[in-house]
């Protein structure tokens, strides 16, 4: 059997991290949202009820990105797995899981609409801005958002593994400087109205592509960092 697939199987030896915990978070956060909606007094239930609890799993994926590297990479070295194989196996596994969740979110969105917002006129999965698009774009957006969070965690963990706290500090400061530079650029050129218009005009597809580009950057950066990392 291919060693990349074996890495994925190694990550799944303990089924909680990749499979169990995300499902528990999804089910628990959704049920809690329903409970809160049910407890609301009738006066507060007028109109649509919004909830952001669908994000809960996504934030767990940030932690999972960190964990899948820091816990497992040193062990994979002892298993005589090359860095490249570890990288492909781990990212491949997560991409598969993220695709599963993206499809699940889309399906839950359909259920939400069909049941009149779970009977509460609520919006949890089929958020108006996203749900107005076709299936492929919705799934792409969820997928990219999940992969992005995972990649941020994974990349930060590779930087820490290779350069320790100094590396993370420099990366953090560098990121802040770039952000500040962009803000300065917009301010000095009096370009804020255009920037605002650009964001307002951004469609889900456009945003997915921009975030997807970020994912690719982080994935490339993680690989180059990991290639020369030692445990």
């Amino acid at each position, binding site marked *: 059997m291919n060693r990349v697939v074996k890495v994925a199987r190694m990550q799944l030896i303990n089924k909680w991290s990749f499979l169990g915990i995300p499902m528990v978070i999804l089910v628990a956060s959704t049920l809690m949202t329903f409970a809160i909606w049910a407890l609301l007094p009738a006066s507060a239930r007028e109109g649509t009820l919004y909830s952001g609890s669908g994000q809960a799993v996504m934030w767990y994926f940030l932690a999972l990105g960190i964990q899948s590297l820091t816990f497992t990479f040193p*062990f994979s070295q*002892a298993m005589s797995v090359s860095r490249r194989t570890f990288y492909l196996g781990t990212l491949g596994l997560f991409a598969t899981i993220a695709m599963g969740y993206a499809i699940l979110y889309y399906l839950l969105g359909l259920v939400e609409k069909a049941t009149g917002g779970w009977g509460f006129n609520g919006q949890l999965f089929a958020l108006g801005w996203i749900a107005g698009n076709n299936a492929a774009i919705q799934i792409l957006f969820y997928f990219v958002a999940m992969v992005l969070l995972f990649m941020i965690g994974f990349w930060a963990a590779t930087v820490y593994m290779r350069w320790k706290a100094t590396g993370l500090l420099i990366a953090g400061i560098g990121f802040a400087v770039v952000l500040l530079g962009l803000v300065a650029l917009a301010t000095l050129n009096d370009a804020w109205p255009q920037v605002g218009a650009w964001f307002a005009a951004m469609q889900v597809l456009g945003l997915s592509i921009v975030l997807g580009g970020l994912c690719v950057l982080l994935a490339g950066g993680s690989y180059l960092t990991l290639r020369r990392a030692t445990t």
Partner: protein
Amino acid sequence: MEATPAPAIEVRNLTKTYREANALDSVSLSLEANRIYGLLGRNGAGKTTLMSILSGQGFPTGGQVLIHGKDPYENDGTLARICFIRESQRYPDDFNARQAFRAAALFFANWDQELAERLIEDFALPTKRRIKKLSRGQLSAVGVIIGMAARAEITVFDEPYLGLDAVARQIFYDRLVEDYSLHPRTIVLSSHLIDEIANLLEHVVVIDKGRIILDEDADSLRGSAFAVTGNQEKVAAFIEGRRVLHRDSLGSLASVTIQARLGATERAMAAELGLEISPVPLQQLVVRTTMAAQTEPRGDHYQEALK
């Protein structure tokens, strides 16, 4: 066509520089397949650095490592033939020993589950407790079991006995020899408990301050130095012109460790002088050589003297 197959491990001018020190200083070695090598040296001598580079886990600053003729770095085909468990090996936080063994069974083609089960019993290893919660000795046992049951063509143990009690250590040595005789492979064992493993070793490599100061067949090494004990003056006369590794004296008595291969004539001469010739245990030999090397800039002298 090559006349002889490439050595199991070949190290050429390997250098590793950390910010403040030379961990490895132009190390060259050639290790044959299917022998047991001892990599001996003090703490910080460069043992772990050398082992992690030759298993593709670390990078050299200069030089080259070839495993069966191929660079192991990022080379899955070659890596699959090597098993190196670090002394400070980290395991996934949520793993128990059973899960670590299941992972090892995935990656090592020759994995022997029966041997693993037997070793688990021998070491009385709790397999359902998280590895994080194991004692130092139990943690070492996890590494030893993976290293042995993996039956990798090249198996590297980095001070595998840390925290193991005397009984467990003996079990490890016995099982290792037993399994090695049934399934020969290249074993590199780093240690500073030299006497304990002396009988296991077929070849000894001593490293000090990043340099190889001894690289010698164990049998030939055992006959390469002797302690001469007796009257101080007679000892002095006998050892004239020989390389002295160590000197002890008590009153008119002297005991001098010399480096020499003694023939029958020389032994007869010593007997006539009333001197006692005794073999030097491997540990003594390594300690004396290391200390002697520190007073001489390079260990070449010793290497030359052995020939």
